């Protein structure tokens, strides 16, 4: 089953990682869920 038990520290490990917005700015992932829950989708590719 692809539904998995996440590591207890998953959010802590993801939070400082930076992704790049389409305008080129760097965004720490943790800022995306600091106000409200986040549905975070990792895509296989943009194809």
């Amino acid at each position: 089953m692809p539904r998995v038990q996440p590591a207890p520290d998953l959010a802590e490990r993801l939070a400082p990682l930076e992704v790049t917005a389409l305008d080129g700015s760097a965004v720490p992932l943790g800022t995306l869920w600091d106000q409200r829950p986040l549905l975070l989708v990792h895509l296989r590719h943009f194809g």
Partner: protein
Amino acid sequence: MFCREHVAQLRDHKAEIDRRDVAVAAVGTGDLMYARDFAEDKRVNFPLYVDDAKASYKAVGTRKGSARSFAKPRVIASAARVTAKGHIQGKLGPAHMVLGATHVIRPDGSVAFAWVNGDFDDNADFAEALRSLD
């Protein structure tokens, strides 16, 4: 093509996601131009980000697909279903064998939903993901 269907589903769920006061973000690999073209082509109505170093993919534990998966009857049937809905395979990205994942993360850092794709056609159901917050 599975990514295209998945993004279209996410786009179509956007109103429900907003109603629940949930933020949404999708992350992909490749360069910015590739991502911008994809966002425009798929009329993406939510924030899209690039993680070309794949650090966040590693953190969530995404898996790698196998070329042999394309010969699996289930994957072939899924590809036919998705293609019939108009989601034609686009340009392959540089990391197209890296599979996806879906998570719901609360502001306190707890993870309400975690899904790591097991194969190319194995995307999470967004309605199920959102129900994890009920």
